[in-house]
């Protein structure tokens, strides 16, 4: 099964990289961007076909390693 974990910065946490990208877009003439926040995407292949089990496993992976929950939120999705 294919799955995806998306890790994003919590609101209120300063994101200097997102700010820099925002500034770069502006200087490239890409108009209308109000703000940018940078995150991470993990594409993961899961063994077996039990969606519930896969979600539990991904949550464990995110809590243990993929996200630092002090500053980051995460979302898991089994994409089929």
């Amino acid at each position, binding site marked *: 099964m294919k799955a995806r974990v998306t890790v994003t910065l919590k609101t209120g*946490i*300063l994101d*200097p*990289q997102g700010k*820099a990208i925002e500034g770069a877009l502006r200087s490239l003439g890409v108009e209308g961007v109000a703000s940018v926040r940078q995150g991470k995407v993990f594409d993961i292949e899961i063994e077996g076909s039990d969606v519930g089990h896969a979600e539990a496993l991904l949550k464990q992976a995110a809590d*243990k*390693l*993929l996200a*630092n929950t*002090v*500053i980051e939120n995460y979302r898991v999705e089994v994409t089929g």
Partner: protein
Amino acid sequence: MKAAVVVFPGINRERDMARTLKLTSGHEPAMVWHADTELPAGTDLVVIPGGFSYGDYLRCGAIAARSPIMDAVRAFAGRGGLTLGVCNGFQILCEAGLLPGVLMRNAQLKFICRDVYLKVERSDTPFTRGYNAGQVIRVPVAHGEGNYIADGETIARLEGEGRVIFRYASPDGMIDPNWNHNGAINAIAGIVNERGNVLGMMPHPENHVEAEIGRTDGRGMFAGLAEALDRAA
């Protein structure tokens, strides 16, 4: 003093640290590999040096914090053992949950490699007994992710409990955004855990210990630690 320096793949300041420990205490530290599961018997100081463990992949210190030796370090710190993390070592201690908060990308997005001034907030810790409270020391930094942050409640606790040990300051000890080179909240450069036996700091006191290569401001930390541990032994 029987120090152990923990070495992870990608760490590159372990020799500076070992040299400083030997120079200031007279004892050669043990070098402990990340895949080991035990610290040498009788270890009374664990040091996690600076560098780029695992190439800073995922997040700085994230993978090192979950390696086998860290269970032994966690148990050692849990028994009250003195534990020092410098630079990447500070990041690893945060990722391991031994210290609160996290070190984010520097506010100006630049890797900063130069001397900074630190205000020593407390002298009544085993790490800072070689200094006076309020003293300003000059030590080098070399990091791209040293911008300390934690949630508001944690910061209030750290401040309320006097757990901020070092702050970035001007040469005369003023806390000023112009001297807070990485944008850390409240200019925090180093903190201790609740029990006061685990210290994490971004600057490198181990690099300023010999007059031949410049300053000796970092010596107070290691000489103080050696004295505290030899007294306890």
